[in-house]
């Protein structure tokens, strides 16, 4: 464990959002318990807790998976990204409690090992003849790996692309959980309401993801073609808001073009922390600030604000006739660049 890393700092705002998460989870469990006592007074404590933790994890997973596409669609959801990993770990803890209670309640007391029983007891089971518990166990295993590697230490040492690829397993976990629920406990339910709720949840979530993914896909294939040697024409200077950026796709990679203090800077749009879209952030105290987790970079050289050590590629820029032209060839990460000065160009 000799690798060094520097976690993103917590701010009072981030702490406040994190507190809302725990208040929300506690409130849900309290309300579920109250509703169980009122409407199913004969339910045993174990079964009530299994349902409470399981449904809480299921609901929280939908919220977690909706955050990404919602942020792509509307920037007002961006603060939720600060606690998405905390939500993920919380979801795993809730699912783990659900799984442990199920094993304790249904899989102990025989001569079959409880873990073996989880994978073998559904053939001819009384809840479902489909091996739904195995799918729940697979999903829990994936969530365990994700929770264990959720810390910035692993993000730094695995590198963002590998870490992101690993955490895309959440979609496999989600599919397993939908199978677990629909082919498991729902098979014993009389009410159509549960099916409708899950259908609505699944359809809404998947539609959000497809919509956001298509939006991103279009951006990737909207390429500028007017070039002069290595320089590519981008946006008029006045179209770039002060301390903000416009994003352009150059030869398959996105470049964020910032305007700050009378100068134009161009850097890679990809934050090295978690691949956040830097061009959707803004310049705060002279630093480009990622909208996802608040990682900051100096625009003049692409180096992260100390003590972080991340670096992003920079791009040379010039202004011709009020239009920003960007060199499509990136400089090495952390390379100082001379910004294009707006008043000189004018």
């Amino acid at each position, binding site marked *: 464990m000799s690798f060094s890393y520097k976690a993103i700092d917590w701010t009072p705002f981030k702490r406040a959002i994190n507190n809302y998460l725990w208040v929300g989870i506690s409130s849900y469990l309290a309300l579920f318990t109250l509703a169980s006592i009122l409407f*199913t*007074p*004969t*339910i*045993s404590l*174990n*079964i009530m807790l299994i349902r409470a933790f399981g449904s809480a994890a299921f609901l929280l997973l939908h919220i977690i998976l909706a955050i990404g596409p919602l942020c792509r669609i509307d920037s007002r959801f961006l603060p939720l990204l600060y606690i998405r990993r905390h939500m993920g770990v919380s979801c795993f803890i809730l699912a783990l409690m659900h799984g442990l209670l199920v094993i304790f*309640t*249904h899989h102990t007391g025989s001569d079959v090992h409880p873990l073996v029983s989880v994978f073998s007891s559904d053939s*001819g*089971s*009384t*809840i*479902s*003849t489909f091996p739904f518990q195995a799918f729940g166990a697979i999903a829990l295993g994936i969530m365990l790996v994700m929770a264990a590697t959720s810390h910035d230490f692993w993000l730094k040492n695995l590198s963002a*692309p590998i870490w*992101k*690829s690993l955490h*895309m397993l959440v*979609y496999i976990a*989600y*599919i397993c959980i*939908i*199978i677990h629920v*629909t*082919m498991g406990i*729902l*098979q*014993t*339910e*009389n009410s*159509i309401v549960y*099916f409708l709720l*899950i*259908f609505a949840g*699944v*359809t809404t979530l*998947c*539609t959000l*993801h*497809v919509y*956001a*993914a*298509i939006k*991103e*896909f279009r951006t*990737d294939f909207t390429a500028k073609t007017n070039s002069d040697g290595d320089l590519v024409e981008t946006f008029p200077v006045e179209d770039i808001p002060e301390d903000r950026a416009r994003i352009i796709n150059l030869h*398959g*990679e996105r470049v964020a073009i910032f305007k700050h203090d009378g100068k134009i800077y161009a850097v890679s749009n*990809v934050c090295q922390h978690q*691949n956040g879209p830097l061009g959707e952030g803004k310049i705060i105290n002279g630093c480009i600030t990622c909208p996802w987790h608040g990682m900051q970079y100096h625009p003049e050289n692409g180096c992260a604000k100390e003590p972080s050590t991340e670096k992003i590629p920079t791009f040379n820029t010039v202004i011709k006739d009020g239009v920003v032209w960007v060199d499509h060839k990136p400089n090495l990460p952390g390379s100082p660049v001379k910004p294009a000065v707006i008043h000189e160009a004018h």
Partner: protein
Amino acid sequence: MIRPLRRRHLLFAVLMLLSLPLLVVFSFFKHRSNGVVENQIENLLNAEIEDFPLVVWNKPHLWTNLPELETQLLASVDIEARLAIRLSSVGSVHHPDILIYWSPRAYTTRSGISENMHLLGVYQNDLNPILELPDEIKDKDGFLIMYSLAMDEFVSEAPLNIPRNM
């Protein structure tokens, strides 16, 4: 650098949108067509219909929350005058692992499955189980308790009155 990730994300999203809603619909129709899942311990403790040819009484609507469940009290013709309960349902009871108990008193949340309750057998839709009453309770009034073992949950109960001339 992250374009392959975005492409993979689009692929996942489209696959999920095409498959998961269908899975929910499929599970709904599977659920409706099956009625209820099979019980692997069928016939446990169940008696044979030939042993109890006499119908003492036949009562519909005896069980709480389960109007479709019909109850018959059957008797044998031998000298032992054995009694049995036969349960038949025109609908489905959607609870897994249902056990039938006899209890001297009505079920309460606090009592749970207590020591003075007698396990009569397993209930399963479409099997119309015949559950013999043990000698020690066959001349006593009491209650039939339906309990889901998998859910560890009380399901329903029915008063059981034995005619005094039996």
